[in-house]
């Protein structure tokens, strides 16, 4: 049994930088959990807090129901693979792998024969037996990675951690190693925590994925859940490649039926989505509509419910074509969309015609739509000002972002200052710490699968 529980864990660096904010997660025994997010989202910091390489500023971390906040790494029963492999350059591969075993004391102490057996077993599984006598500098990147995994494997541990283990490898090797990690996981049969910024790795490896942004958990769920039911716009755009198309639209309720209005078209909502909207009793409202590029279809002829577009860029990927198109409904402010088309269904003529400047029509079905609350003007302003950090923003800039007159913008600024979310620094406005927390909370939640449901699920696990 090796469960890991994190309760209200926070990491605040010297100088008040908030790296991880109120992290709650319960990892089950033998579960493969992946922390994923853009760089600086706090995923590695969280892992390092579990490993004992960083102090936990607030909150509690339990491994196997034992509070480990103040325990050194070696007493936590963990092993870890580092992004830069962290092999000891002065030791041979064999000695690198035997290193953790030679440090065992007391009841766990191993004889040289036992160490030999364990190391050679691990080497056999990883296919590095022939390199045991070499020094790390004489190995390729992939071989080094295997040695690093081997060193983590031989040590009896409860939790196996990996901090971006594949990010230093080239694309081909990364795919190969990813497959090997899946196989390895079956052999090791331990609890895994895996950190990556690559959503493909997260989707293929994890039993559950924790998606993070700016120190906040955005969503916790299985790969299918986070793909099909993203909790907010960030998750929706982060998971899936190319990223989901999102654009403003109007969701209209007509009797018991729903439809959306966008780009001058009227598209009915169908299937489960329509049922779920009805069940949640959603009224007519402005929304951000999300549609994945692979769920869009194209036509060369106009038709009912098809959006006229012009191709801006054509990316030929071999098995599929990524078309970057601009909508033609408003020539002054076109919306950019991406459409992913499998090449197998295209004729040679079609392939040749899909070039920049060609007019095409795209459409999507009602059952593939995702609906998000649009960001309020306040949130937009806070997020933008927060992005400028200490430099802040002028009232003019804020008026531009809020898309309103300067006088109106000044009212909004006063309102935000009154709420203590914004502060005035000689005519430039910066967010307060409270404002920063507010800005980092992504409010453009999914109408149907908002964080409420996820947070409840996460709490229930604890």
């Amino acid at each position, binding site marked *: 049994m090796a469960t890991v529980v994190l309760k209200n864990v926070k990491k605040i660096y010297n100088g008040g930088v908030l790296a991880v904010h109120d992290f709650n997660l319960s990892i089950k025994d033998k579960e493969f959990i992946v922390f994923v997010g853009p760089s600086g989202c706090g995923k590695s910091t969280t892992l390092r807090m579990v490993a004992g390489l960083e102090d936990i500023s607030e909150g509690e971390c339990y491994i196997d129901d034992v509070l480990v906040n103040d325990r*050194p790494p070696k007493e936590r029963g963990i092993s*870890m693979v580092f*992004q830069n492999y*962290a092999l000891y350059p002065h030791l041979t591969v064999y000695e690198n792998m035997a290193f953790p075993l030679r*440090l065992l004391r007391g009841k766990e102490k191993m004889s040289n024969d036992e160490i030999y057996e364990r190391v050679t077993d691990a080497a056999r599984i990883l296919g590095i037996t022939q390199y045991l006598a070499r020094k790390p500098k004489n190995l390729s990147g992939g071989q080094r990675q295997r040695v690093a995994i081997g*060193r983590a494997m031989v040590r009896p541990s409860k939790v196996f951690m990996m901090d971006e283990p594949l990010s230093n490898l080239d694309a081909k090797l990364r795919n190969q190693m990813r497959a090997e990690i899946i196989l390895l996981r079956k052999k090791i049969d331990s609890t895994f925590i895996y950190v990556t910024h690559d959503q493909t790795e997260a989707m293929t490896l994890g039993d559950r994925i924790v998606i993070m942004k700016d120190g906040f958990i955005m969503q916790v769920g299985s790969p299918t859940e986070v793909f099909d039911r993203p909790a907010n716009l960030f998750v929706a755009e982060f998971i899936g490649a190319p990223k989901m198309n999102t654009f403003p639209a109007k969701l209209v309720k007509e009797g018991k039926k729903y439809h959306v209005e966008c780009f001058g078209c009227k598209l009915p909502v169908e299937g489960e989505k329509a049922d779920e909207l009805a069940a949640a009793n959603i009224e007519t409202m402005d929304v951000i509509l999300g549609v994945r590029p692979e769920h869009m279809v194209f036509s060369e002829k106009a038709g009912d419910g098809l959006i006229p577009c012009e191709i801006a860029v054509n990316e030929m990927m071999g098995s599929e074509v990524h078309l970057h198109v601009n909508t033609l409904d408003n020539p002054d402010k076109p919306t950019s969309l991406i459409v992913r088309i499998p090449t197998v269904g295209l004729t040679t003529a079609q392939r040749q015609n899909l070039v920049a400047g060609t007019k095409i029509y795209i459409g999507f079905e009602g059952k593939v739509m995702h609906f998000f609350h649009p960001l309020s003007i306040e949130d937009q302003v806070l997020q933008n000002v927060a992005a400028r950090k200490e430099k802040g923003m002028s009232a003019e800039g804020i008026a531009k972002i809020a898309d309103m007159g300067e006088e109106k913008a000044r009212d909004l600024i006063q309102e935000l200052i009154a709420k203590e979310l914004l502060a005035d620094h000689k005519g430039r406005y910066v967010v307060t710490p409270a404002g920063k927390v507010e800005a980092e909370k992504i409010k453009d939640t999914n109408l149907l699968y908002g964080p409420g449901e996820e947070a409840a699920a996460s709490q229930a696990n604890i």
Partner: protein
Amino acid sequence: MADNNTNRKPTPMEALEAENQKNGMGLKARRRIGNAVSYVVLILISIVWLAPFVFLIFQSFEVSSTGWSSRVWPKQWGFDNYVYLFSANANFNRWYFNTFIIALFCCIGQTLMQIAMAYVLSRFRFKMRKPLMNFMLILGMFPGFLTMIILYTVLKDLGMTGANAVPGLILVSIASSGMGYYVIKGFFDTVSKSLDEAAMIDGATRAQVFIKVILPLTKPIIIYAILTSFMAPWGDFIFASYIAFGNPNGYNVAVGLYEWLGTEQISYHYTHFCAGGVVVSIPVIVLFLMLQRYYVEGVTGGAVKG
């Protein structure tokens, strides 16, 4: 084939050469003259630099000494001066032993202090770390002999002056050695911190991390620390001279040999001084030759990578 050669477009290098020839001098000729000038200057500098050593070595074999001579080549060759050095009449044995003991203890003590200091400043993050480093940098800018008077008073109270100058000198050298951490810290900084972290996760304590991972990887700089801390006491004069305070039993070789150069003694001891100079440099040369490979690696490694 011949046509091809004549019609061929000249390469940029050839074009440049042709241009230079037009202007009067070829590129190769210019390079040759430049090299010749450099070599002449270098040889002159070497002669100036090496002449005293050569002079010293030759004079140490001079038997019929009557003091300072302008001869380089000895009139009569022999090992008499060397025999005298280690005879009961001379105090040289004592000075040599004193210096060796000081060097040995300083070598151990200073190296330990310096690597401990460097490791802490390289790996630990604590509140006053930066101010402490700045403070030591500023402190290091003052010449060491400014502390002479207070150090003498303290050592005198401790009974470590005069004939007991050896422990006093060891104490003074080791006590201030932590400040010489810069180069070693620079080298430690080049060892990735993730190695420390990996070792700690593998079950090592801080001490084990240091001994099993950091030390083997920083061998060159440790050797450098050993070498420099061994060599410094051999040439130390100011501290050694005033702490011994005229008591020949407390002298190190530098002070003792300098004594021989006094106006009253120079005529008798001049060639002994030369022989002493040669003997003093032997252990340092031997040590340096043995460890020179690491020394060079240590100095450049720390400086460039850091």
